[in-house]
């Protein structure tokens, strides 16, 4: 059974019998939470599928107005943050307390860069009147309605993704504070592990958003 010192660092809660049980429960809980997230974004993917089938041309033209190079670069930024995140988890597994902090900070910074770039892109859309609503205007296409549907989906999908990023950044900040206090070790690292799962999941969502939003029939040219 856990000794006094253990009880403080391992934080075995009273409803559990063993640390393994507690860790398993936390991981399973996070995975089930991620299922709910898949279904949450699933509704958006469904709407996207329906309208893209209906309005293939309008979607291609509207998609071409997004800057593919910024999108690709931002994808690389987010993938890099996933790498630093997994390295943070690895550092935790190995009990390297300083490395945990540094990798988490790197992850946080890369996440911040991604959000910054996203904000810049949204601002561009604002300048170009590509924000859905009464002021919406998209040049070069008579079919304003479906073009607006594309941008509605664009903002809904990237907006909700960004919201998840912001939550992730918040979680990372909490982790960094705790990691800096030396709370995590090889035998107690569940929070790092679980936040890692969340962060990678948000990355996976972007992996799909990037081709679906930025890469429709680019060969047509603008």
């Amino acid at each position, binding site marked *: 059974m856990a000794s006094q010192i253990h009880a403080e660092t391992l934080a075995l*809660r*009273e*409803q*559990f*019998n063993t640390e393994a*049980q507690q860790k*398993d*429960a936390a991981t*399973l*809980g996070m995975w*089930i*939470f991620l*299922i*709910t*997230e*898949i*279904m*949450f*974004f*699933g*509704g*958006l993917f*469904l*709407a996207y599928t*329906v*309208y893209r089938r*209906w*309005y293939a041309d309008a979607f291609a033209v509207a998609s071409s107005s997004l800057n593919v190079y910024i999108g690709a670069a931002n994808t690389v930024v987010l993938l890099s943050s996933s790498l630093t995140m997994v390295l943070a988890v690895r550092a935790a597994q190995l009990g390297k307390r300083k490395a945990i902090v540094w990798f988490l900070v790197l992850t946080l910074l890369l996440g911040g860069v991604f959000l910054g770039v996203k904000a810049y892109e949204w601002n561009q859309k604002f300048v170009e009147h590509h924000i*859905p*609503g*009464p002021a919406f205007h998209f040049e070069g296409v008579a*079919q*304003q*309605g*479906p073009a*607006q*549907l594309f941008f*509605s*989906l664009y*903002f*809904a999908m990237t907006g*909700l993704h960004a919201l998840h990023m912001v939550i992730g950044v918040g979680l990372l900040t909490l982790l960094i504070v705790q990691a800096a206090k030396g709370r995590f070790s090889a035998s107690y690292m569940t929070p790092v592990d679980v936040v890692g799962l969340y962060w990678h999941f948000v990355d996976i969502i972007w992996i799909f958003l990037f081709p679906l939003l930025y890469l429709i029939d680019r060969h047509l040219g603008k």
Partner: protein
Amino acid sequence: MITAAVTERENYLNVSHGLKSWLLTKDHKRIGLLYLFTITLFFFLGGAFATLIRIELLTPQGGLVSSETYNKLFTMHGVAMIFFFLIPSIPATLGNFFLPMMIGARDLAFPRINLLSWYLLVIGGLFGLFAMLAGGVDTGWTFYTPYSTTYSNSWVIATALGIFVAGFSSILTGLNFIVTVHRMRAPGMTWFRLPLFVWANYATSLIQVLGTPVLAVTIVLLFSERVFHIGIFDPALGGDPVLFQHLFWFYSHPAVYIMVLPAMGVLSELVSTFSRKPIFGYKLVAFSSVAIAVLGFLVWGHHLFVSTQSVYAGMVFSFLSYFVAIPSAIKVFNWTATLYKGSISYATPMLYAFGFIGLFTIGGLTGLFVASLGIDVHVTDTYFVVAHFHYIMVGGTIMAYLGGLHYWWPKITGRMYPELWARLSAMVIFLGFNFTFFPQFILGYLGMPRRYHVYPPEFQVLHVMSTLGASVLAVGYAIPMVYFVWSLRYGKLAPDNPWGATGLEWKTPSPPPPHNFDRIPIVEHEAYDYSTVVGEVMEVG
């Protein structure tokens, strides 16, 4: 008459005192009671709306309230009853209280998330209440676009936000239950030794986790369309309002099973305990819960037969709908078969169980009518459908909920309720229910559309019958409310196992100690093995 403290032994009720000890509790039993209190408020609120609706429909001209008010009444009746009463009803109260005890755990896997779930329901409920007090909402609980996004001038956003927040309460409860059943079972408690109530709640949790997020995103899109004019469903932009209906019913049809599966779980406990026999075909009944949860996701398009959905999709959804009938039929047959050569007691919970089987049979069989394309075209959006789902939701879920509440009341409170009054109210509810809703089947087939404030005079006789039945039903619901409260102080002290039941929850004192078990039990028997308890049966009364 006992007026002293319930008992001197430490239990979850007397371990700490004061409002704070309840509002910050992490004990699943106390959280279950917080839910009980909250949803009871919403039940009576929804009931008050229903009362006004029924009084209004006494006359065809619609004299009592304006059309606008009437539309708000049925909307708020639906919202309060479905999202703030029926969906949390059995899982969040009885499930929360007994699921950990039944599997031999000290608590749910995530007690703090459990408390958070309750707060989310309260916050969602406050949004809903705010919308109701501020002026109400008139879209129908289904929120069909474009009416809800563009045309309605009522408090759509506040209500939708309330449902969104309450949805997360439901998701987190489901998540908590799934992890708990997987990771917290006591030694020896194998999957096929689990009480069927646990199986049913597990299946329910699957739906909550897989379905509710789709409702959440649908509400986000509705919100965006109404507030920011980000029109995903807007026909003026080339969007399709029927897409909203697909997304809405992808959740809201399985949500019916969120409401009725736990009721089926309660029923298995009641039928087994009060006929003192294991449920006939235990494995089939267990699997049928999971089958209903899975198949329930494949049938939502049967709400869209006349919506301009494609004819072929209509046929696919009608075909699949009949598959849900099979596991439901299996359950009814197996409960009935359990009675065969049993030792049947007529205690109040069993009366509710008989009532459930009867009403659920009628509700389920009329489900076959509305799943049939030819009939549904005629009866959809009429009182036939209203009657059908009230037979399932009220006749099914609420009967089982009340049955379960009576069954576990001695364990929850340590007090017995007055048996005679309880039997009387069970029978009043059964009769009142049938008088209220059976005439509505006829009304519906005659063509009376639902959500009508003013209606042709030839439907009046049946409406009057329905309203009379509803008054009886209202009395039936009021009686338990009175004697449950009464029993808290004046009820006889309850023994640990008044019914001679087998579940682990009955192996604890009544009311249970804060951590349920002083020592985690080791399970050595199958579920419902009455040879282990029959010697220790205690006399009631």
